[in-house]
């Protein structure tokens, strides 16, 4: 008799699909029912795919696996808003390369996950649609900006992997706050074709999943050079699951002292315990210093806002997205559409980015920040000569409540990104893994490696992983 019960690990599920022991019709209808109820409870989706499971998926590594996609990645025939009202009606007629690869491997697109508008946020509270709620405590944030991806992964009672995206920590933050695994690849490892851009020199398509194995599997599917993305690196993909179970004995892990001050003491303890667990497996731990990382938040936000202000210039009420009856002269019409279509944080970043790129200010802000990025890359590269990876907390605190977030100023929120901005700014791969709970809330540890060293991160993360 074929199995219909679905609460099993991704690896087991895919093996059982292959062996023919899963009743796939029943599975599809169970997943639809479960995701609708999950949506009512936690709101992880902006759009659920009405066509989910209607066509028989292609044979491949992900056959019949439900995959959710962050709403900033284009999906053919499924509305794609990037979390913004200005794209409320946009239905792409093509798939982003990462989505096309998932489909070609047999994955089934479950829906488009909630996010801060265009990725502008740390807590998924700058949403033009519903704000996703943390399955550990619905009064608390899922983290941002890929909050829906973290929420769906934590709440799903069926095998599932989320395609997410990070610019300055948008995979690590939700992974930490929802007790999931978040893999942010090296910049250029995964094609950005079809990704609605926020900051084109930092945007990275990645994965959020329940286990390290799932992230490694999905990276194997979506990585690789793409002629449609000129910033995609000329590297093929590989089977990243082969790094799981590798001996971490003798691997060197640097612990930067700057990342362990002014953080929640419960977070600190759990991360130190996880590092001790790796030491127990004979990894070599040493304290290091990364003094320039104190400038990472400023450098990151200057570059991100500068690039965002140009990337968002294309939304003007013509061709696609929010449109109105064409009237008046162009400046009046464009301003009217943009002012009603963009949310508050989008406006703030466009204004700041426009200011910092303007003649007279460009050298002082934008070019200065690019130079600081050079110094940060140099500092990390020097550290990687002595260590294989760097371990830090993923976020400096436990997931805050929505009423606490509402009291924070924009600058205070930007400062919450202090763990994640430096590696994202420098394009280094990171992985966030759950390392336990405090007061019933999850805590994550972030591991950072040199460019294209995702395999190393996967080995270490799997060794430290606590499988629920």
């Amino acid at each position, binding site marked *: 008799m074929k199995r219909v019960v679905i609460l099993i690990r991704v690896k087991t599920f895919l093996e059982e699909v292959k062996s023919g022991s899963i009743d796939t019709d029943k599975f599809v209808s169970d997943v639809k029912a479960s995701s609708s109820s999950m949506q009512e409870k936690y709101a992880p989706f902006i759009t659920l795919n009405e066509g989910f499971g209607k066509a028989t998926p292609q044979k491949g590594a992900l056959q019949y696996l439900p995959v959710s996609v962050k709403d900033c990645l284009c999906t053919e025939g499924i509305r794609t808003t990037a979390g913004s009202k200005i794209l409320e009606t946009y239905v792409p007629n093509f798939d982003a390369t990462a989505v096309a690869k998932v489909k070609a491997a047999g994955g089934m697109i479950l829906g488009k996950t909630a996010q801060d508008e265009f990725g502008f946020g740390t807590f998924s509270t700058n949403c033009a649609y519903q704000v996703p709620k943390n399955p550990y405590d619905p009064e608390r944030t899922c983290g941002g900006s890929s909050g829906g991806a973290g929420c769906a992964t934590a709440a799903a009672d069926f095998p599932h992997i989320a395609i997410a995206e990070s610019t300055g920590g948008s995979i690590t933050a939700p992974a930490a706050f929802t007790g999931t695994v978040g893999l942010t690849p090296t910049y250029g490892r995964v094609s950005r074709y079809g990704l609605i851009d926020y900051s084109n020199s930092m945007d990275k398509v990645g994965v959020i999943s329940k286990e390290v194995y799932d992230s490694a599997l999905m990276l194997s599917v979506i990585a690789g050079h793409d002629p449609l993305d000129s910033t995609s690196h000329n590297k093929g993909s590989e089977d990243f699951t082969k790094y799981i179970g590798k001996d971490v004995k003798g691997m060197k892990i640097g612990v930067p002292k700057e990342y362990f001050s002014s953080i929640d003491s419960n977070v600190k303890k759990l991360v130190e315990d996880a590092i001790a667990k790796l030491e127990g497996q004979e990894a070599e731990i040493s304290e290091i210093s990364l003094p320039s990382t104190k400038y990472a938040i*400023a450098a990151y936000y200057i570059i991100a806002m500068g690039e965002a202000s140009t990337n968002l210039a294309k939304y003007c009420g013509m061709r696609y997205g929010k449109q109105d009856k064409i009237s008046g*002269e162009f*400046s009046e019409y464009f301003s009217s559409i943009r002012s009603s279509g963009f949310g508050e944080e989008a406006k703030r970043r466009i204004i700041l980015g*426009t200011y910092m790129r303007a003649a007279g200010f460009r050298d002082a802000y934008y070019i*200065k920040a690019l130079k600081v990025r050079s110094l940060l890359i140099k500092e990390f590269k020097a550290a990687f000569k002595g260590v294989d990876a760097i371990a830090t907390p993923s976020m400096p605190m436990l997931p805050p409540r929505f009423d606490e977030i509402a009291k924070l100023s924009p*600058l205070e929120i930007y400062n919450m990104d202090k763990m994640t901005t430096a590696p994202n700014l420098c394009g280094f791969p990171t992985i966030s893994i759950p390392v336990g709970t405090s007061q019933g809330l999850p805590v994550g540890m972030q591991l950072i490696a040199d460019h294209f060293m995702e395999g190393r991160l996967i080995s270490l993360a799997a060794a430290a992983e606590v499988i629920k």
Partner: protein
Amino acid sequence: MQRVAFMYKKVIKICNPKCNHMVDFQKVDKGMLSRICSNAKLNLTSSEEERFVSEMGEILTAFRELESVDTKDVQPAYHATEIRNIWRDDKVKKKSVDIKKNTEALENGYIIGPKLV
């Protein structure tokens, strides 16, 4: 430089590109915010104006901490990794798609836009 003077008449000093340290900037006021919004094609409500003027001052002051970093002889990193252009043949490979599928204002197959001049 004429353009700078035109756009930001109230700026007391501007940064010398050869200088590694930021110089004084005038506090962001409503006039400057209005000029930025005009460039960025945004209309703000009066409450948004009040809030943004105050927040921008606080945010830009914080960002100016980069002043203290010595970046003499440092090249800007436009990308985090070394990227080399990879050429491909200029051949049509993909099926054609209806690029006007999401467009509401069309006339005789052309996209209609607002008046320019």
